[in-house]
């Protein structure tokens, strides 16, 4: 039987991901991803063109497989990274959710995001904003993320950007 996804279900999943990132519940966050998940935040080739070929152009973050994200979680929790502790307070706001395609147990969702961050140590507040593309796959009765594309529009990075701040 082929599962279909409604926009309400898509929103639920995106909002759940956002909440887990903001709460620091990163094991549950990782569990949303398939083993082979691609996590990709491109850089910009020029003013209006993001990089498109990760093998020949630079990305800000590019991992093929959830294990790359597991590395990031381990580092962020290690207590051995001054950039990761104390973690900034964050809130992800996701809107303009559109169901782009839903066929044969896969679905693609487009959305816009703003992440507001407060770096307590530096007493500095900053927003990252841009567009997401999530590709979902139905696995063992649940929708999981098999690809997340993050187009960061304000890419002059104030000191740090990490998986939990985009």
């Amino acid at each position: 039987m082929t599962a279909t996804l409604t926009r309400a279900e898509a929103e639920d999943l995106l909002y759940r991901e956002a909440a887990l990132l903001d709460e620091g519940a990163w094991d549950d966050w990782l569990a949303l991803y398939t083993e082979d998940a691609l996590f990709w935040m491109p850089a910009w080739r020029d003013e209006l063109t993001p990089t498109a070929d990760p093998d020949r152009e630079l990305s800000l973050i590019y991992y093929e497989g959830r294990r790359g994200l597991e590395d990031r979680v381990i580092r962020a929790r290690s207590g051995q990274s001054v950039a990761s502790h104390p973690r900034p307070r964050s809130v992800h706001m996701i809107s303009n959710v559109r169901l782009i395609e839903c066929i044969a147990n896969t679905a693609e969702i487009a959305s816009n995001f703003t992440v507001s961050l407060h770096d307590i140590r530096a007493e500095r507040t900053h927003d990252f904003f841009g567009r997401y593309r999530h590709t979902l796959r139905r696995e063992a009765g649940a929708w999981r993320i098999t690809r997340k594309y993050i187009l960061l529009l304000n890419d002059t990075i104030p000191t740090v950007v990490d998986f939990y701040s985009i």
Partner: protein
Amino acid sequence: MTIDPVSLIDDRPDEGIFRVDRAIFRDADIFELEMRRLFEGGWVFLGLASQAPAPHDFFTATAGRVPVLVMRDGDGQLGAFVNSCPHKGAQVVQTRAGNARMHVCPYHSWSFDSAGRNRAIKWQRAGCYAQSFDRSDHGLARLPRFEEYRGFLFGSLVADVPSLAQHLGGAARFLDFVVGQPEEGIELVPGAVTFTYDANWKLQLENCSDAYHFTSTHPSYIRIMERRQKGEGAVGVRSIWEQSQAWREDAEGVQGGSYSFEHGHVLNWGRIGMGETHPLRESAEAITARHGEAGRDWIFNMRNLTIFPNLQIAENASSQLRVIQPLEPGRTLMRTWCIAPKGESAPARRRRIRQYEDFFNPSGMATPDDTVAYEGCQRGHAGRIDPWLQGYSRGMTASRQGGNALSDAIEASPLRNVLADSQLCDETLYHNYYREWARRLTAAVHE
């Protein structure tokens, strides 16, 4: 000027003392002097010739606070100009790069060709200009000095500077190893990454040359490397640091060291070797044919090169070109690129890019720990009780005048050198930065 720059550097070599006053990182008058004497008063790196390969190609850069336009004219000649219309001062070119025979100022439509010449003043005949106006030059202001060294473009906003060759001096030998791997020339991998940090530009200057911080600042990165060596962690991302002994405390023998050159340039280096994850491994034979065995060994060393004051090339986990742009005493903009040899194979390029993203990006697992540490330093630099910093003392009894066997083998001629085991972590190479800094900030200049 309320502070004498020389009074902020306590340089007493005979007594084994070198100290720096924290004020150099926070003082607004010092910052203004740095801008005028270093960044707007001497050679600064502007970009690579490969950023404007074809006639009429251009890219923009900055020299200190001054917007600069580098263009290749119709005859293929590169030139550097102040990106500011002589009419009202507006920035003429709005984009980072492109190709155009003519640049029209968006404010009042004065037009300039790719050689910087004025080609049109709107309604000039109707303008009732005086003859003296018609007789004067209306082109873009050309940088008084603009030269290339093997694809590296440098400019100076003042004319009274030594030639670029003199300025680079012995450090040029190490630029040779950046460009010949083994083909002539390097290219910027598409996708520039820009970040800021809220601390002084000299924190970045020093950190690139800092062997002492690696195991303290980056243990989380080291832990991830160890995971990946065991086959855990990210697939397809490996680091050449994995093979290096240079940062392992139990490594024996000479593991690296430093060289200081005239005019403030420094190199620090460490042994990495030709591990399987090194993107250049496929080119080892061709590199040997071009540079000899000694040159090849140097190319396979970790090398962090600073061309004072604004260019750093870090060749360790992949290769990064960084341009330091001070914004305020406590704020710095970094423009960074992954650089790669022309003609590199697709798998090697891919490996290079993956290592780069993981280590160098502000979205990676190493650089944020550096920049956040700089910000901590900047807050700490507010301290005035015991202002003298003690971070310039390691290696004091190991620093030697001139070169050593390793630099002799490639005919490099440094002013000073240090050979180091894995724990020495020389700090005397910073002396070279601050001696040049003091010399330039106090020199009599015609302004």
